[in-house]
């Protein structure tokens, strides 16, 4: 199957990177998470309930909705924090990209390790700017808020095309489709990676990292 790829671009101030990334990643994950599955006899299952919460940004005039799961929030924050640090350490240019990839696992027989087949990739390109004075920062707060609003609308637009989604798995297959490690919600299997672009515009692949546990590499 073809992997759907979407690119979102934002231009932010250094201190806004974290919240902007959280806003977009959480918005995507909100749509790509379900309640926990409880399999019953005869192959049927029931689905738990997903709660939501409003988050206000401190450095951006923006609020977003995320799934009520502290565990998931911690994982995403850790990833975004690493990305932010890498972006900060890269030098004054501050260009990078964080990717959220949804994939399915396909079990292979030994000695081959499991395949990860992505079915949807969201890439968020970030451009960090430095602002000279407080007035510009204030304008930036509002502008970035508006831009993020547009990005949320883009995300919703893509998701509501209702294109390919993995089939609902049987109990034995559920870990190939969903991340069942969290206690309260069940997102599709995902991984977050990032790349920092150096001043020449080429991506520095040494910074590719897997931040979330995924396949068992034998």
């Amino acid at each position, binding site marked *: 199957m073809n992997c759907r790829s979407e690119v979102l671009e934002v231009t932010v101030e250094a201190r806004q990177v974290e919240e902007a990334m959280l806003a977009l990643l959480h918005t995507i994950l909100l749509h790509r998470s379900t309640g926990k599955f409880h399999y019953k006899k005869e192959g049927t299952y029931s689905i738990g309930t997903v709660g939501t919460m409003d988050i206000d940004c401190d450095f951006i005039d923006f609020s977003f909705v995320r799934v*009520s*799961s502290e565990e998931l929030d911690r994982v995403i924050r850790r990833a975004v924090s690493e990305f932010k640090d890498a972006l900060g350490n890269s030098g004054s240019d501050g260009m990078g990209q964080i990717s959220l990839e949804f994939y399915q696992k396909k079990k292979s027989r030994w000695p081959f390790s499991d395949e990860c087949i992505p079915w949807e990739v969201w890439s968020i390109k970030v451009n960090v700017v430095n602002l000279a004075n407080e007035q510009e920062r204030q304008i930036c707060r509002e502008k970035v808020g508006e831009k993020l609003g547009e990005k949320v609308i883009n995300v919703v637009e893509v998701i*509501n095309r209702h294109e390919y989604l993995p089939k609902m798995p049987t109990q034995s297959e559920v870990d190939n489709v969903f991340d069942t490690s969290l206690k309260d919600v069940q997102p599709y299997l995902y991984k977050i990676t990032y790349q920092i672009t150096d001043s020449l515009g080429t991506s520095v692949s040494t910074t590719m990292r897997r931040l979330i546990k995924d396949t068992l590499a034998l």
Partner: protein
Amino acid sequence: MDSDLSPQDKKDLDKFIKFFALKTVQVIVQARLGEKICTRSSSSPTGSDWFNLAIKDIPEVTHEAKKALAGQLPGIGRSMCVEISLKTSEGDSMELETWCLEMNEKCDKDIKVSYTVYNRLSVLLKSLLAITRVTPAYKLSRKQGHDYVILYRIYFGEVQLNGLGEGFQTVRVGVVGTPVGTVTLSCAYRTNLAFMSNRAPDEDDGGLFAGVQDSQEVCTTSFSTSPPSQVGRTEGGVVLVPAHPHAADAHLTAEHPPNTPGSSGDDDGMSQSGEGRSVSPSDPVESLNAFTRKIGAFVNKPTTQMTAANLDLPFAAFAPRGLDSEENDPMVQPPDSPACPSPLQASLHSQGSESSGQQDDFVMVDFRPAFSKDDLLPMDLGTFYREFQNPPQLASLSLHISSQSMADDLDSLPEKLALYEKNIDEFDAFVDMLQ
């Protein structure tokens, strides 16, 4: 064709659409209450959470939605609309957005009702949650309180977008195909925020819904979405936002009885006083009018420091004023009192009284309250009035520590009781003295 759909599927589909419509209304109204919404995830399914989402059901909102639907379902040509409008304390109002749940003829015969349609409706609700925070009305609704409130209105029938002004934008939340049609959810929002006064001279709200009441298909009931404590008197000049939606529940419950169907929400629609508070419906209006009206009787020099702002909004003393000296005046020992401060003064002022009184560089303007004599006593009426006018806020009333202090209070209760029991004779003597 409905004949392609099994009876069970048809029944399920109708139920899904009905509950989807009700949940849509809940999400939209709750997003305009002005508070942050937070619901918990639950891994064990309760069976009562539609679309596997924890969306609270505010009873009044459900009631209004059901009333608007009147047993029908959104269908082709029959849309369910939620209109969000803003109403200022002066009575001017403006439509901000209209959310439309519509159905068109495009059918998807092959789709599985109980499974795919249900899941897609769930995703659509999540999208609605996200989009309701993005339209301009969200920010306005978070700031509602003193100057304006946000109202909602549910109607069923034809979509009306005339009230949104020129150049309104539309954002599509999403679509879900079903065997009987495609469900679409969208929002049309105003971009031109220049104010249009819709106030009718006689009744406050009569003008707002005059046009709509002519239509047979629409139901005109209007309710405010802001919780009771946000409008009118506030403590410490801070808008109190209830931590959970129960206050909104209670508020909306209280409002319901005065509103009969067909009555176009009068002042009660905006009233926050349902919960037994003594704030009158027109309190926000009064407190704004009082800015210009209230000047002490027989006062020769109306001083800016003694406006209603000081009376109604305790922290108004910190608002910018023409004369710096007057602002400092209430907090500072007046110059004509003796060097030795009274114990009362010392306890009231946050600044130590020892340092006060040496403020000779300030120009003191005398405040002459009505009917007072110029006594030249240490504590003349004017001084007394100034000093006791802005008392520091009671610690127990301060919101953020009230929860802590409750726990502390409970903990210290046994010790306090023991102490009181020990001093029981003292208390008895005191009581006797009073009698």
